[in-house]
């Protein structure tokens, strides 16, 4: 078939958290340009299994760019060369026959490697658990239309809420900072009237948890936004800084 390609992959292999890891070379042949990047890995794994080798472990689930599981650092960039696209939605037509592709896991202190390309991102869950919610028990709610929300605010909150929690922002950041992830949630909830009452305590708690988890500080390089598959705006970070400052100096 025309358009099929042969590639060299350099893939990070690491048996477990404390085991040493290294890049291992693999050749894959006859890859169709319609394959997704992960399907190319399926082909490779199938080959490894048949040969009696250990397949490469990597996180993936929905394969339609929304669950946030996939997490490969491809040729020096989280989720590979395209803008606004997750690894599972990256297709092989973005590569050329004969290319060498380096694939590494997300690298950050707060994202320890589990195996090969799979990392532990539970730090994100703990950050949400520290305050990334509106405290409303089931059954407490009033009628949904009793609280009109300006369309612009709703839209902006939605843009922030589109975060899939994949961790590409951390992986891209020179400081391994989680500011984009945290600020997206803080922004979403503070933009909506129902989230306002808890703004101060939310931002204080979430930033505190973020620091405890061992993420770096933000240098405003913008790498996070540039690599975010959902193109979450850097403006969220400024908003969180503002809210954090206000909550720290003002507030109760």
């Amino acid at each position, binding site marked *: 078939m025309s358009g099929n390609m042969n590639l060299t992959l*350099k893939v990070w292999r690491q048996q477990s958290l404390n085991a040493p*890891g290294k*890049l291992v070379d693999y050749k894959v042949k006859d890859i169709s340009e319609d394959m997704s990047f992960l399907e190319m890995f399926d082909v490779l794994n199938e080959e490894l299994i048949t040969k009696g080798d250990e397949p490469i472990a990597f996180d993936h689930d929905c394969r339609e760019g929304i669950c946030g599981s996939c997490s490969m*650092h491809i*040729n*020096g*960039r989280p989720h590979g*060369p395209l803008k606004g696209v997750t690894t599972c939605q990256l297709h092989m037509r973005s590569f050329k026959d004969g290319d060498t592709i*380096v694939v*590494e896991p997300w*690298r*950050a*202190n*707060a994202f320890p490697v589990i195996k090969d390309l799979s990392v532990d991102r539970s730090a994100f869950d703990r950050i949400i658990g520290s305050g990334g919610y509106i405290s409303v028990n089931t059954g407490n709610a009033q009628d949904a239309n009793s609280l009109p929300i300006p369309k612009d605010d709703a839209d902006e909150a939605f843009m922030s809420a589109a975060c899939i929690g994949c961790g590409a922002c951390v992986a*891209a950041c*020179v*400081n*391994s*900072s989680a*500011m984009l992830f945290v600020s997206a949630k803080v922004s979403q909830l503070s933009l909506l009237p129902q989230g306002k009452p808890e703004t101060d305590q939310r931002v204080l708690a979430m*930033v*505190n948890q*973020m*620091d405890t988890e*061992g*993420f*770096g*500080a*933000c*240098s*405003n*390089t*913008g*790498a996070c936004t*540039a*690599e975010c598959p959902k193109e979450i705006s*850097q*403006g969220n*970070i*400024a*908003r*969180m*800084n*503002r*809210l*954090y*400052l206000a909550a*720290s*100096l003002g507030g109760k």
Partner: protein
Amino acid sequence: MNWFTTFITSSIGKKIVMALTGLFLITFLLVHCSVNACIFFNDGGETFNEVAEFFGSNPVIRTMEIVLFICLILHIIQGLVLWGQNGSKRPVKYTSKNGAANSTWYSRSMGLLGTLLLMFLIVHLKDFWVVSRFTDEITGGSTTLYAKMNEAFDNIWVVVLYVFSMFSLSYHLLHGFQSAFRTMGWTHRKYTPLIKAVGAGFAVLIPFIFAMMPIVMHFNLID
């Protein structure tokens, strides 16, 4: 921990210290640059020496100098601390890097640029500030600051150091100026582009004026 220590030791608090001290240093640069630009009056340093003397003796300015040094030291220490801490957040580095795809090199190199500036600063302060504050060479009238400048910039290596350092300063400012506003949360759909433009202008103009001083003096382009 009380609220203040919590705030100031948080990742955002640390960055706010960097932003506020940075912004103060920016205002200082403006003043410093304006004063030094007096050499371009081409009057043999007469105006410059007068203004320098005024600044050296005015109590308000002397008080601000203390504030300036506090800010400078905070900016340096905090910057180095952050640089070290941030670097430790990724113990295993990537083999394949392509930072250029998502950010500017200077935004990722503020620590390095800052360190270069610190080294420059040590030389610079030793050459001029220590002389004017802690010796009586200038106050005693045996020489002028202008003359000291002429003397220092006679050496081509000093000129090279200064010009090189002004490149560092320029890139440091190019990112730092607008970054400080972001850190403070002072962003706005309408005004952020203006801040960015002013920042870029500042980052080019001020280091350029500074860099011209050793050059014109070395090549005797002014009297």
